[in-house]
């Protein structure tokens, strides 16, 4: 997969996860989500800086120029502004399993710099996947309510897993299906397969996300801390 798409997945995921800062169910989880967002941002910066000017790419592109998959840009709850923790862990499970595979493949390419980014990110994705897996176990096997809500999230997000895992789907299913089974959750049937993110056809959610992320640089081009 091209580095721009991989970098955009990480950048948009970082911005999404940052919405949790100061709102997580516990202080420890607040720190965890912020740290995962930071790892995503770190990977995004390294990948985008390989492709071009990281600030130009992050702050000056319009939505149709982004190449992230649709899953990365979806709200982390049933609707925009309605953050849901089980939803977020389901999203993180799907995303981090795919990123782990993409980064593993990247670590094996001939280009030494790109391979270095992959090798670094593999370690971090492994930790993210572990984190999501533990929470899926707790939520899936927790109360009736936690089980119902996390199953609803998996059902709603599952269709977006097709675009996410193009080319690595079998390996991805080998990671994700056992987690769902261990958590006592039902693996949803494969039905519709929304896509288009990789060619710049996004959901409206990306536009709102970018408006927030880019507003300062749009108003003050070249602004620095």
């Amino acid at each position, binding site marked *: 997969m091209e580095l721009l798409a991989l970098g955009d997945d990480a950048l948009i995921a970082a911005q999404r996860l940052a919405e949790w800062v100061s709102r997580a169910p516990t202080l*420890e*989880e607040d*720190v*965890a989500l*912020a*740290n*995962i967002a*930071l*790892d*995503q*941002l*770190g*990977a995004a*910066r*390294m990948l985008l800086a390989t492709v071009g000017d990281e600030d130009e790419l992050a702050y000056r592109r319009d939505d149709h120029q982004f190449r992230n998959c649709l899953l990365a840009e979806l709200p982390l709850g049933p609707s925009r502004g309605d953050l849901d923790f089980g939803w977020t862990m389901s999203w993180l499970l799907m995303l981090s399993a795919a990123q782990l595979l993409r980064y593993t493949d990247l670590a094996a390419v001939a280009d*030494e*710099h790109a*391979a*270095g*980014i992959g*090798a*670094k*990110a593999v*370690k*971090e994705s492994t*930790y993210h996947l*572990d*984190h999501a897996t*533990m929470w899926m176990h707790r939520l899936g096997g927790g109360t009736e309510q936690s089980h119902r809500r996390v199953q609803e999230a998996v059902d709603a997000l599952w269709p977006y897993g097709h675009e996410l895992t193009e080319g690595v789907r079998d390996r991805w299913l080998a990671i994700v299906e056992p987690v769902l089974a261990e958590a006592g959750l039902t693996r949803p049937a494969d039905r519709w397969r929304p896509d288009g993110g990789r060619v710049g056809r996004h959901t409206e959610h990306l536009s709102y996300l970018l408006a927030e992320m880019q507003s300062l640089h749009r108003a003050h081009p070249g602004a620095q801390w």
Partner: protein
Amino acid sequence: MTTVRTDLADIAGAVPDPELRVVTIGELGIVRGAETAEDGRVVVTITPTYSGCPAMDAIRDDIRSALAGAGFADVEVRTVLSPAWSTDMITESGWAALERTGIAAPGASGTPTCPRCAHQGQPTPVLQISRYASTPCQSLWSCRSCLEPFNAIKKL
């Protein structure tokens, strides 16, 4: 007459980590090397512990000012990613400094030993409170014996 120190990597490596002030970036394995380029510039090579580590910018600045203080005005700090940083790159004196501050090593099995109770010889039971802590490279634990919380470096 000014004496110019030439042990560049030692000067860069002696910079304290901006978040964990008790250890140097040399002890943490962040400094990969330092050399003088043909044009006289000093090139220091560093590697991040975590790719999004927010301390990297401060580390770059601190290296530049440490070398400026030793008489090297023109310093370039380069970042390399390969081989990726791991906890194995922390030196023995680095671990000792961390433990003295109450930050535990990850332990061979991934379970750290309580730094306060370590002197008792027998490891006390510990419980992980959070897989993430105050910096990306640490996790948060609690000792079931002395009941105190402590940070541990995450195995990477």
